[in-house]
C-alpha cells in the first residue's frame, strides 16, 4: 500500500523519538529486549561485558525507537531503559518507510 500524499492532519501528530540507554555491566545476556523490540532496534553485540555476557547493542536504524518502553518492562535485570527525546514531525518519507518496511508481512528480524 502506498500513500500518495501526506495525511491532512499530519501537523497535529508527531513521532516520539526515544533514546535507548543500556547499563552494560548489569546485563546477563538473556536476549528478551533483542527478541521482543517491536521496531527491531537492538542486536547482540560482539563485545563482552564484565560478567562475560554479550550485552545488546543498537543497530544502524536506531532512530526507529519510538519510546514504547517495552524493553524497560521486559528486562529482568534493570539494565535497559528509554528516554524521550524531542518528538519528530511527520514527513512523507516516514509514511513511506512505515508502510513499506514495517508492514505486517515483513520479517524484520531477517534484515539484521
Amino acid at each position: 500500500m502506498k500513500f500518495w500524499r501526506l495525511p491532512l492532519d499530519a501537523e497535529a501528530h508527531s513521532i516520539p523519538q526515544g533514546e535507548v540507554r543500556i547499563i552494560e555491566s548489569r546485563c546477563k545476556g538473556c536476549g528478551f529486549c533483542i527478541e521482543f523490540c517491536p521496531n527491531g532496534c537492538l542486536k547482540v553485540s560482539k563485545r563482552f561485558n564484565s560478567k562475560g555476557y554479550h550485552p545488546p547493542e543498537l543497530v544502524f536504524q536506531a532512530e526507529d525507537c519510538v519510546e514504547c518502553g517495552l524493553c524497560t518492562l521486559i528486562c529482568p535485570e534493570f539494565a535497559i531503559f528509554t528516554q524521550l527525546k524531542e518528538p519528530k514531525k511527520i514527513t512523507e518519507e516516514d509514511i513511506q518507510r512505515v508502510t513499506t518496511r514495517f508492514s505486517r508481512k515483513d520479517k524484520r528480524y531477517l534484515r539484521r
Partner: protein
Amino acid sequence: MKVRLRELQPFDKEAAEAAIKHDHGLHPHDEYLKPGRIPHIWCPGCGLGVVLTTFIEAMRRKNITPDQCAVVSGIGCTGRVAGYLNMDTYHTTHGRAIPFATGLALAKPDLHVTVFSGDGDLFAIGGNHMIHAARRNVNLKVICVNNFNYGMTGGQVAPTTPLGAKTSTTPRGNAEPGFNLPHLAHAAGAVYVARWTTFHPRQLVHSISQTFDKTGFTFVEAIAPCPTGYGRPNKLGAGLDEMKFYGEHSEIRNGAPPGDAEIELRGKIVVGTFIDVDRPDFLTSYNSRIVSAAQAKGKQKEKVKIA
C-alpha cells in the same frame, strides 16, 4: 603440577561502595530498589525480574511511594524479592507469608500489603493459609510467580507441575496433575483473579495496578520461565525460547470461567482477568459485627454504672 594462586587482596570498602554508587540510580526504577543489591541472583532468562519490574512499574503508575506499601515474601527464588525492594519488606519462614501479611494488613489498614511469593511457597506448604485468607477476604494483594517447580532447591516437583512433566524428582514424568491456581483462588473467594505470563508485561502492569484500587483478597498469577529447573529437563529450551513458547501458546480470554484455565505440558495457556467482583473485606465485617457489638455492650455497662 604447579598451582599458581592469585595474591589475596584486602577488602577495599571504599572501592566497593564507590562501585555500588556508580551503577545505582542510573535506571529510573532504582529508587524502588535497595542500593548495592542489583545485579540479583536469578538466572539469565528467568522471568522473576520481569514480574518485579512490572510490580515497580504498577507502583509508579499509581503514584504509590515506597512508604505506602509493604511487601511480604516467603522462601524460594521469589522470596528474594523482599531483599531487593527498598521499602518495608519482610522475608518470612517457608509458607508463612500470608499469616504474617494478614496481621500486618489488620494492624495497618491503610497500607498496601503485597504478598510476593512463588507457587511452591504459597500452594504447597502455605496452601491452607492461602485458601483461608481468601475465604476471610483479608485486604491482601497476592502475586504468585508460577514457574512449575521448586527452583531454588534444584527443580523438584511442585504442586503446580503439569501432568507428565519431568523434574529432578520425577525423571519419568510427573504422575499427578497440577493445581489450577486461578480456579482455586476463585473457589476460595478471592475478589480479583488474573493470570498472565511474562510475555505479557503490559497486561501484567495493568492487572497489578488494578489490584491497588481493590479492597479484599486479590490474586495475580504470573507464569514465569524457569530455564534451569523446568525448561532443561522438559526440552523447552532457554528462557527466551520459553518466552516465545508462551507467546505462541497463550490465549487471552478475559472473563473466562477459571475452571477452563487448566495448564497442560506443551498445551494452551488461558490467560486474562478472570474474576473482578466486590465483597466486604474481613476488617469491615469484623468492625461492623464484633467491634460495634462490644462497643454497644460497653456503653450499656457505663449507663448502669452512672445510674
